[in-house]
């Protein structure tokens, strides 16, 4: 069965939105338990990371011939990663520090894992802004360079999680492994093209 591009786009859109709808449903019905602040923070942070990792999977999937249409959905997935990242940040401001500037400053300065998380969001911000076709045209080749910020964003996200692991580091290690594989794949590819280029010019 062949699913049309638009249909698949819609399915992926709904799939990426589903966690948010589930969160709203849980929050409405008290399903987040006695400490919904913490639940919301974990949930949104995890989904930001899942979707960022998924976005980073798309290019390798196309290259490896697993999914030729993968790149069509890259922007949407990246935007959803940013969306959950924004919810995470808003949750932090509202639920953890109550919009107190002094507390936010203190958290960023004294808790490096929070700074790492904030940097991850900050790296995604210009990518989200310049994700339109208009910006893509205007920036030309610079757009490609700019969007390499997705790599430090993913690294910052993983550092943010790993720094918080306390007694059971299993989940954090899994994130590290996934992002390491995805970044290593690109590094290997790059090293190979460079050595090929050198071989050709020699």
């Amino acid at each position: 069965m062949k699913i049309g591009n638009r249909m698949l786009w819609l399915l992926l859109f709904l799939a990426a939105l589903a966690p948010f709808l589930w969160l709203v449903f849980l929050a409405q019905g008290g399903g987040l338990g006695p400490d919904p602040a913490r639940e919301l923070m974990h949930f949104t942070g995890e989904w930001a990371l899942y979707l960022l990792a998924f976005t980073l999977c798309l290019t390798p999937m196309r290259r490896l011939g697993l999914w030729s249409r993968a790149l069509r959905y890259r922007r949407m997935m990246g935007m959803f990663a940013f969306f959950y990242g924004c919810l995470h940040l808003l949750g932090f401001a509202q639920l953890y520090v109550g919009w107190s500037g002094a507390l936010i400053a203190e958290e960023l300065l004294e808790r490096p894992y929070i700074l790492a998380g904030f940097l991850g969001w900050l790296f995604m911000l210009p990518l989200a802004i310049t994700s339109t076709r208009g910006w893509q045209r205007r920036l030309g080749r610079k757009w490609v360079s700019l969007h390499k910020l997705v790599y430090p964003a993913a690294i910052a996200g993983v550092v943010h999680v790993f720094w918080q692991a306390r007694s059971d580091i299993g989940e954090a290690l899994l994130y590290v492994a996934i992002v390491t594989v995805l970044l290593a794949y690109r590094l290997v590819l790059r090293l190979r093209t460079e050595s090929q280029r050198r071989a050709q010019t020699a």
Partner: protein
Amino acid sequence: MASRFKIPHIASSEITSETAYFNRRELIKVAGMAAVPTALAGCSSAESAETPLDFAAAGDAGAGFTTSEALTPEGDVKSYCNFYEFGTDKGDPAKYASEMTTDPWSIEVDGMVNKPGKLNLEDIMGFELEERIYRFRCVEAWSMVVPWIGFPLYKLLEKFEPTSDAKYVEFRTLYRRSEMRGTRSFTNIIDWPYREGLRMDEAMHPLTLMAVGMYGKTLPNQNGAPIRLVVPWKYGFKSIKSVVQIRLTSKQPDTSWQALAASEYGFYSNVNPEVDHPRWSQRYERRLPSTLLNPNRIPTQKFNGYEEQVGALYAGMDLSKYY
């Protein structure tokens, strides 16, 4: 497989002999995997095996024995727990702690005491019980108000006659891999059994409680059945659960969290908004239950509001050094 905790009406020695008991464990092992699915099916958190207790009502507010603050609903205290022996998710203990056998149970008391010995479950339940309504502040910046039932730790310690060399008290939680799935995790980095400690004067303080129940009934497994420590002016992780060993020592004992990250978890771990923690700001706490629209953030009090009662224990100490 998961025998639920009940107060025995006859001495436990009359119920099952030790050898029969261990044979029973062997039998279960042989029955093996066939029994597992049914055992798991029986581990619903809704299951309630707590037995009502006889106790004296919470009294002296001046001594910190009670508070007029609203109690955290019992369901929240039972469902939102840190008991890493059963997993690191807040809901794990409620799901899996019923796999822990709490009867028979005994606490070994040794070290610098004149009369080392053992307290069996019926000895433990034989103490005169009283209710204490305490604030409970977790280092993760959330807090609850819980009506515990128990007896002061000093009453237990006095039975064993601590010697003058006893300066500290070390506690250990049960460590039974077969019944505690969190301890079987490959990526867990806690060195079991879980260990905690108090200085002798802290241990002898009237606020320091050995709890055997809450909300009028015996403790649910996930909250530390059959007996746990409650030290209301310290972060929750000091209030060690399901205690099987109490040792009096002359040297400050190592604690599990200290061994893992000494810069984060000190021996004292008194609740203190002025002493910051590398992970969580300790200035505020979310008093549970909280909601998204009203997170119920309140300023954290020094010594969790028990400064009047316990401040003197730390007179002259630099609390940012002895955190």
